[in-house]
């Protein structure tokens, strides 16, 4: 594929006895926005972990940003890959403020023994502004709401100046308003920077329809690939989630796609 940034061939990953990926081949072009959906346990998160070098391959090959992934180079690869995990509970008494947390994004790039300088703080402040969190910059991180913490996580990820933007269920456990805001923000960032984006979710209502392409996953395999319109049919979703077509229709009416 021309100007591909990710090229995965027959990847197999296993955690203890469970096989999380059973031979997945998949590639992504520079600047593409790919939505990955599927039920829990489909292997979506595992797919992201082999892209950022945290997952261990049993078989197959992973080529990311010009290099084949080996057990030794995951570390340097991760400096170029931004990763936003699911919202997690942060200790409300954690002695760090929002600005310091965003700065962590630059620590990997800075490397050992170097301290953040003026330029690093400037980038941090710009990212806080982009995600609309400047007014809370000095607030202890644990005092933020779930939606605000995800904005900070996105700012931290962008402060890393990544070449790839990976989001793993970034809107899980957020309320409807916060979820919509985060999806808008991700869309805005993709439009502004044309950053290659992989967006993982199990929840159809939190999938930005700005996706160029969708990948459906089930039981460790890629089950379908294509544009959102051709892929998200009632029949496909009914099979993917193992529910009757009538239930898909009902839920579709309830769900509000952004």
């Amino acid at each position, binding site marked *: 594929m021309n100007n591909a940034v990710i090229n995965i061939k027959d990847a197999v990953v296993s955690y203890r006895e469970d096989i999380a990926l059973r031979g997945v081949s998949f590639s992504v072009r520079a600047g593409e926005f790919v939505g990955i959906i599927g039920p829990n346990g489909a292997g979506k998160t595992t797919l992201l972990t082999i892209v*950022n070098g*945290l997952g261990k391959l049993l078989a197959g090959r992973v080529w990311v940003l010009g290099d084949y992934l080996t057990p030794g180079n995951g*570390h*340097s690869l*991760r*400096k170029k*890959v931004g*990763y936003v*995990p699911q919202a*997690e509970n*942060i*200790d*409300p*008494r*954690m*002695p*760090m*403020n929002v600005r*310091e*947390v965003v700065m*962590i*994004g630059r*620590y*990997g*790039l*800075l490397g*050992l*023994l170097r*301290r*953040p300088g003026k330029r690093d703080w400037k980038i941090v402040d710009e990212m806080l502004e982009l995600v609309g969190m400047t007014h809370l910059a000095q607030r*202890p*991180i*644990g*005092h933020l709401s779930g939606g605000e913490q995800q904005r900070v996580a996105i700012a*931290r990820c962008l402060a*890393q100046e990544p070449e790839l933007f990976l989001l793993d269920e970034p809107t899980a456990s957020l309320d409807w308003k916060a979820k919509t805001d985060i999806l808008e923000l991700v869309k805005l960032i993709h439009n502004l920077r044309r950053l290659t984006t992989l967006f993982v979710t199990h929840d159809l209502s939190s999938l930005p329809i700005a996706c160029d392409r969708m990948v459906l996953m089930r039981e460790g395999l890629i089950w379908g690939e294509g544009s959102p319109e051709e892929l998200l049919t009632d029949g496909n979703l009914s099979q993917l989630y193992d529910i009757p077509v009538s239930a898909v229709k009902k839920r579709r009416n309830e769900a509000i796609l952004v």
Partner: protein
Amino acid sequence: MDLSIFGYQFMQNAILSAFLGGIACATIGVFVVLMHMPFIGVCMSHAAFAGALLGLWLGFNPLIGAFALSLLSAAIIGPLADRGQLNPETSVGVIFSLMLGLAFLFMGLMPGTKSGALELLWGSILTNTRSDIILLGVVTVVVVGLVTIFYKEIQATIFHRDMALAVGIPATLALYGILFLTGATITVSLRSIGGLLIFSLILNPAAAAYQLTYNMKRMFLLSAGFGVLSGWIGLLFSYLFNIPSGATIVVTSSVIFMIAAIFSPKRKVKGWQQKPLVEAK
């Protein structure tokens, strides 16, 4: 109050030991508190105690036994907690009770008087020698030095280990480094504070500092200050009332924690969180 006692060499040694041990233990304590691993620390201290007794029983240097066994316990618990295969609290509980059992087993097997063993149990800061202090000094300098040099890596690892890994920081190495330093600090402080009490001097000053600040650097400094203060006030009370110094040091650190908890601004966390709502109106 007759304070001429502070002119004696043994008392000066004790004051210096309390200073160095207070700083090292309280610095380690910040990791223990912020990384939510008090059980790992408690387990490592008892392992060190058991290792020292093994040394006394078999006739090798108790400090080597203490260091080896506390690192061994960390080597067992670390990966268990790391991989999340077992509930870490459960595995730590099993190892903790095993270590305590071994300690008393070695004590029972030991021939002759048990005074050396009891000293390790209660601590005896007043009998610290020059070489004890040099060892304590070296470990304190290494602990404080590494925290200063690798502050940003440590800060990221403390905040969120998986996230630190994801931005390209060697967070797993940082975690094991922290466990290693914990083992070394416990080992060199064992003789001064005692195997059963050492963990309080690790936990209490940091827990007190945790109540008082939202700034991590300040938390390290406050914690070290409380550690030294606990040692010095404890020594003074030990001398004034003629009671064991390890106990007075630990009780002092607990009192400091209670005072910090009572005056903690963080008790008003709810008020803080509601503030923006009020502003919005």
